């Protein structure tokens, strides 16, 4: 697995190297996926461009809207004080990734570029309407995360382009998030199904003003369950309505059968987890209000 190693010290230099190497090179963030892919021979690279000396990529800015640099680690997400309230799903998604050793090193940007359909933080970011910013020779571009994820291991990034950060808006009042994951054991597990929900109630606290439901490991990419979201909006969040949303999300999912679970079991899990996560959001909104 031999390659040339580069350590740019500015974003401009990193972008130049990316443009020069194109498909012969890859950017290295934490490396917890990339190094394994190189060792397995899945990726044959002539150049690895390590980003850890590029300043400004590992910051979390949470003043109203939230900006995450591409090199923010899962550990940093788990511990940030701004994510302990309404944004708790970010912590819940980050803390089930690998063991401490992987979370100490693996980054949120690397996780998105790796584009595993089973990535645990990605559904949370989708539920928050996250936008992805990336840089290339043509300058900086921003896309909704939804459109950025193209397929298993595939994103809208072209060779040499570099994901620099993520951004999402502040949660409106009367909002909460929740993340749930089903696996065969409690830790070190690739999700059988993972999902995140965000619920915002109207000013009276009686009806759903906005809902987001994002599903992992049940389609070629992490994706939103839009029919289920629409079924919630404008309605009172009764147990029946939340169960209906779960059923609709199950219909929208397109799981495969593999070593971890059958497609049928995954569909059943989606229904249960979506209903449960929405219920949890509702509890959290009420707890915060009381």
């Amino acid at each position, binding site marked *: 697995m031999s390659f040339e190693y580069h350590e740019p010290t500015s974003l401009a230099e990193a972008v130049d190297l990316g443009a020069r190497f194109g498909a012969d090179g890859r950017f290295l963030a934490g490396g917890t996926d990339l190094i394994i892919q190189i060792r397995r021979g899945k990726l044959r690279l002539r150049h690895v461009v*390590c980003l850890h000396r590029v300043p400004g990529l590992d910051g979390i800015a949470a003043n109203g809207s939230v900006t995450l640099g591409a090199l923010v680690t899962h550990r940093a997400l788990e511990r940030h004080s701004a994510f302990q309230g309404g944004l708790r799903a970010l912590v819940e998604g980050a803390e089930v990734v690998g063991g401490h050793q992987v979370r100490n*090193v693996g980054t949120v940007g690397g996780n998105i570029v790796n584009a595993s359909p089973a990535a645990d933080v990605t559904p949370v970011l989708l539920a928050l309407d996250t936008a992805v910013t990336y840089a290339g020779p043509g300058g900086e571009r921003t896309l909704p995360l939804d459109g950025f994820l193209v397929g298993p291991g595939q994103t809208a990034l072209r060779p040499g382009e570099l994901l620099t950060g993520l951004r999402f808006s502040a949660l409106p009042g009367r909002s909460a998030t929740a993340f749930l994951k089903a696996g065969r054991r409690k830790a070190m597990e690739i999700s059988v199904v993972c999902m995140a929900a965000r619920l915002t109630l109207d000013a009276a606290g009686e009806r759903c003003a906005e809902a987001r439901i994002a599903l992992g490991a049940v389609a070629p990419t992490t994706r939103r369950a839009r029919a289920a979201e629409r079924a919630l909006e404008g309605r009172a969040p009764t147990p029946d309505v939340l169960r209906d949303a779960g059923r609709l999300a199950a219909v929208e999912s397109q799981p495969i059968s593999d070593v971890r679970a059958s497609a049928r079991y995954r569909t059943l899990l989606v229904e249960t987890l979506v209903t449960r996560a929405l219920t949890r959001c509702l509890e959290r909104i009420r707890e915060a209000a009381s």
Partner: protein
Amino acid sequence: MTKVALTLTINGQRHEVLTEPHRTLLDVLRADLGLTGTKENCLEAECGVCTVLLDGRAVNACILLAAQCQGRQVLTIEGLGRDGQLHPLQQAFIDHGAVQCGYCIPAMILSAKAYLDEHPAPTEAHVREALAGNLCRCTGYQKIADAVLAAARELAHRR
């Protein structure tokens, strides 16, 4: 292939290393520096036997390029004891019979150290979660958890 020149501080001692860029911290520790207390097994960050502390945090040395560690502090099991004395975690593992084949133990102890440094009074559930990234195929987890809890008490007593 252009080699990279690195300065690594390992167990408090500075090492100048010249190595190919694809080599991992694990390769350099074991093959170049003879520090074979850090073990090699799955090479995919699943088993955790290669765990060392990088600037105080547990990492899998098998998937970390040595070049990523330039200028940083590495602690391996060889550097844990001081002045011929075992670290309280090492002593607790012996006292509780927590070592069976032994292969996972250096990494187990280092993961436990990183955790106890930040969480001095854990519950058993916390300890088990802290060690989730370290597999023991002898499956001796109960005695390992007991040993870590005993070491936490001993460390608290010394403070």
